[in-house]
């Protein structure tokens, strides 16, 4: 009897031990499952954070592209109301703050990108971005765009938060900055449009610029305008065409340069030069006098004759000179050869587009003449 009770007791203990062990196993499995589900959430979130991190650099680039495109379209200015012509004859107005304008816009666009992400994915939180450009010349110009934040960005789910670094250094296309360098050299340091006008004048027909008349009697001398019209009809019109042709001829080096003449005023001035001006019997007589050739017995003049006392003068090596002047208002487009994905508000779409620096200038080949 005692042995039987002891056996039952031991079996009960054994059962308790075994079921206890299984209870521990099962409960730990339950905990494991919960931990695993959480681990799975963390892993997914980590991958999403990874995708966002990959995208940050892209978003910073897109922001720069858009800012650079818009500032370029405004000729380096930030606002349409600030836009000035780069040149008004001898006075120049280079938008020295163009880098700052691009910087500010880039900063705003980065902020916009991150705000949209925060709105669409509530778990993300970014602090205020700061953009800074660093220029260095190491043989060739290098530009760095440093995007920094005062704190890490976070991705928070209900039981965990992932923190990561949103700071990046971007190398924006140097082509964009070359647009400004090239435009500065061509239209601020020197006035290449003025040079084009001079070239246009040089390309005018010789007979439109210099007319040799050689020996011309003064009474036959025609005024310079008439002579010009006979030798070079519509000279001003021809000059205007040459000016437009010369200015609008596409130019290209590292960048593409296109100029469009918006308005043009032309005029010409004339002058003359001759080696000598003196009386010449070739030109005929200007003043006659009558003299008696033969007297009769009574001393009366029997035959009169006219004698020239003054001949017309003759111009020797007479040359008429014509100078041409043009004043132009020009729209300059300096664009990169590479294209970037940007939004154009006028066309209302996103496309691969060239960065274009667009501005106006007014100049002439005689700064004292300002008809425009």
């Amino acid at each position, binding site marked *: 009897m005692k*042995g039987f009770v*002891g*056996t039952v007791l*031991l*079996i009960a*203990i*054994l059962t308790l*031990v*075994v079921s206890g*062990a*299984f209870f*521990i*196993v099962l409960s*730990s*499995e339950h905990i*494991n*499952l919960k931990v*695993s589900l959480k*681990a*799975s959430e963390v*892993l*997914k979130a*980590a*991958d*999403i954070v*990874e*995708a*966002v991190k*990959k*995208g*940050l650099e*892209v*978003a910073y680039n*897109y*922001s720069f*592209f*858009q800012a650079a495109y818009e500032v370029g379209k405004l000729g380096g200015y930030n606002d349409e109301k600030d836009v000035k012509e780069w040149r008004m004859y001898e006075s120049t107005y280079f938008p020295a703050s163009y880098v700052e304008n691009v910087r500010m816009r880039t900063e705003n*666009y980065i902020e*916009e*990108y991150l705000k*949209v*992400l925060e709105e*669409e*994915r509530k778990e993300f939180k970014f602090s205020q971005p700061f953009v800074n450009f660093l220029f260095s010349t190491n043989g060739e110009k290098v530009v760095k765009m440093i995007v920094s934040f005062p704190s890490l960005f976070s991705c928070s789910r209900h039981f965990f938060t992932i923190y990561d670094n949103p700071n990046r250094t971007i190398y924006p296309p140097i082509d964009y900055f070359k647009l400004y360098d090239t435009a500065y050299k061509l239209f601020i340091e020197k006035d290449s449009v003025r040079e084009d006008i001079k070239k246009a004048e040089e390309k005018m027909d010789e007979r439109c610029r210099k007319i040799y008349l050689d020996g011309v009697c003064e009474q036959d001398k025609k005024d310079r305008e008439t002579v010009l019209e006979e030798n070079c009809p519509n000279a001003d019109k021809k000059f205007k065409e040459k000016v437009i042709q010369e200015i609008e001829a596409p130019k290209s080096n590292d960048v593409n340069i296109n100029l469009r003449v918006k308005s043009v005023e032309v005029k010409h001035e004339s002058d003359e030069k001759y080696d000598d001006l003196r009386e010449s019997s070739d030109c005929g007589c200007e003043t006659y006098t009558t003299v008696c050739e033969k007297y009769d017995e009574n001393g009366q003049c029997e035959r009169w004759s006219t004698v020239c006392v003054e001949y017309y003068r003759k111009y020797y090596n007479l040359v008429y000179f014509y100078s041409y002047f043009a004043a132009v208002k020009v729209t300059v487009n300096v664009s990169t050869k590479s294209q970037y*994905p*940007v*939004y154009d508000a006028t066309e*209302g*779409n*996103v*496309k*691969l587009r060239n960065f274009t620096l667009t501005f106006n200038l007014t100049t002439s080949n005689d700064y004292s003449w300002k008809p425009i």
Partner: protein
Amino acid sequence: MRCQIAPFDIGIIAIALVIFAVISIFLLENLHIFTKTVVVKVVYDTNEAYRLLVSLLSLNYSSYTVYEMIPSIDYIGNQNFANFLNSSLYHYFEKAPKCYKLSLGSKVLVEYKSETYSGDCTNTRFNAVVPIFVPYNKAGLVEELYLNYER
């Protein structure tokens, strides 16, 4: 009265201890290892599509990354890029998948279905969605990129 433990009882206790030790040491351990392996695999599988999507975005296609190409596909209009995506996705799998579909928002970029698969490859076991930044525009700056597939 002296308390005596019968040899039979000692035997029972010894067996109980041995069983307890076996359960504790081997069964518990093995069960842990087994379930953990299963769970880890399950956990690993749950983010497999995410890993694939992140890897895909990191690939380079000509001078652009896949990340940049995907939202630009409309205006770059490059059929070769679609072929590149198909090839990259298809070769990711060790054997031909039943289906896969890569979509940007509601727009399907590339899609594949095996002859035996009859679904639309939307509610698949493997799926991932990540936000991606698109070139600046007025409609939206962030879009969702979806990857669905069924092995």
